[in-house]
């Protein structure tokens, strides 16, 4: 068994799988069930002035008949009084002293409000705090959540206020509804954040009912934008984590959130710089037990790779991530079709013909069987054919030897500048 323990800015947990602040962490009953199921930590459903929710809160999209490719909600923060939550946090911590309990907090952007709530939650023994600057609906309209999370100065100020009194590590949870996440991340760091977490949900509308013409979900015939999460948002979240991880001015640990549902997702987030991950949608779809395969799969992966500890993954791929201008223009890859494996669906042909570079030709072998031929010299190596190919192993993208030594766009432009005419 590999060592799965993680330490995020001082918050330790038996494994890197935390439940994100959301319905699954709404109560002590739930968090305790989660810990029993194997979750390493839980970020409590955001505490603050208790709100009122609408009925009809969630919606989801399917992809080709598969449920919950993406999930959406118009729920707000906790609707339960702070005292009730604190009592349950206290009891849960007592039962599970080695699991991480982080209190998610959202209050008005006023110093005394932050001071008050931070003190009260730390009194019951939480392991850390997460400042929720992310909720994209409802709270935002009250100047909280994303509304303050979209303003770097407010992010910084509120982080500072929390840090002024906090004794436990402070994580700042960022909203993805922002032009440049590294700006707010830096604001958090400047405010003294011990760590950052991302992403919260993305503004979205799941759909319109084709019969009633009402939005989905619909509250008494009316809809409003909700927050998007689940598998569909993973690439967005992964990029934001990676952009922060590779940013020299953002040198704090990252808790990765957004579309994590499997151990593979977790490995990717960790390779891209996260110290651990948080999960909401996957748990809501399948219940707490999904963590079993996450733990088991992660352990088997680490053993297979000969890694003793999960922490050896953290950030290992960050150095591979850069800007477009640093990519090598002289690198060449082309498609190569393995006729033996190919099942002759011709999807690669039509994809290349209609929508790429018209270089997969349909031919007939001497024995009359059809096969496909890639005109290598015209293939630009776009990958499309290999993406649409349904048969594993039928198309390989092979790397060609360099004809010219590597050259990035940035290098090219620097040199060309010296050749510029007037």
């Amino acid at each position, binding site marked *: 068994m590999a060592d799965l323990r993680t330490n995020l800015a001082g918050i330790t947990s038996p494994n890197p799988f935390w439940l994100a602040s959301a319905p699954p962490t709404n109560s002590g009953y739930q968090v305790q069930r989660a810990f029993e199921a194997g979750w390493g930590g839980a970020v409590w459903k955001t505490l603050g002035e208790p709100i009122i929710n609408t009925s009809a809160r969630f919606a989801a999209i399917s992809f080709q008949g598969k449920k919950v490719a993406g999930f959406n909600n118009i729920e707000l923060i906790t609707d339960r009084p702070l005292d009730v939550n604190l009592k349950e946090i206290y009891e849960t911590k007592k039962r599970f002293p080695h699991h991480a309990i982080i209190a998610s907090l959202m209050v008005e952007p006023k110093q005394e409000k932050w001071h008050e709530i931070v003190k009260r939650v730390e009194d019951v023994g939480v392991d850390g705090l997460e400042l929720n600057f992310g909720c994209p609906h409802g709270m935002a309209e009250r100047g909280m959540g994303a509304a303050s999370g979209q303003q770097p100065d407010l992010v910084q100020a509120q982080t500072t206020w929390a840090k002024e009194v906090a004794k436990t590590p402070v994580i700042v949870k960022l909203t993805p509804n922002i032009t440049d996440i590294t700006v707010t991340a830096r604001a958090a760091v400047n405010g003294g954040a011990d760590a950052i977490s991302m992403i919260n949900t993305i503004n979205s509308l799941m759909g319109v009912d084709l019969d009633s013409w009402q939005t989905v979900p619909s509250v008494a015939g009316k809809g409003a934008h909700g927050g998007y999460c689940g598998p569909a948002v993973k690439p967005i979240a992964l990029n934001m984590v990676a952009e922060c991880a590779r940013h020299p001015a953002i040198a704090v640990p990252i808790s990765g959130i957004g579309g994590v549902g499997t151990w593979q997702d977790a490995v990717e987030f960790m390779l891209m710089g996260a110290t651990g991950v948080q999960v909401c949608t996957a748990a809501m779809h399948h219940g707490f037990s999904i963590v079993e395969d996450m733990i088991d799969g992660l352990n088997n992966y680490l053993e297979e790779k000969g890694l003793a500890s999960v922490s050896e993954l953290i950030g290992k791929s960050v150095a591979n991530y850069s800007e477009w201008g640093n990519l090598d*223009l*002289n690198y060449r890859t082309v498609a190569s079709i393995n006729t033996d494996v190919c099942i002759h669906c011709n999807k690669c042909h039509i994809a290349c013909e209609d929508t790429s*570079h*018209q270089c997969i030709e349909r031919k007939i072998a001497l024995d009359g069987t059809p096969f496909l031929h890639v*005109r290598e*010299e*015209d293939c630009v190596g776009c990958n499309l054919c290999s993406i649409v190919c349904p048969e594993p192993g039928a198309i390989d993208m092979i790397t060609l030897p360099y004809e*010219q*030594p590597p*050259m990035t766009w940035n*290098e*090219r432009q620097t*040199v*060309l500048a*010296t*050749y*510029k*005419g007037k």
Partner: protein
Amino acid sequence: MTASWQLYVNEKEKIDALLHRGYVICEVTESLEGATVIFSHPTATPIQEVLTVETADARKYFSSLLVHSVTK
């Protein structure tokens, strides 16, 4: 439709021919039509040759040569 590779080869051959004859690239202007590359030669006639390089691969090619010669 002339295969795009062939278009590149045609342009590359022109570049190579000039370089082979001792011309060197002295000026590059990029525009909506690609790159206008001015070659010059201290002794040959004409002392300047101008190529409009259209294909992406050829534009990549001559710049690679420049980058390469600078770094060498």
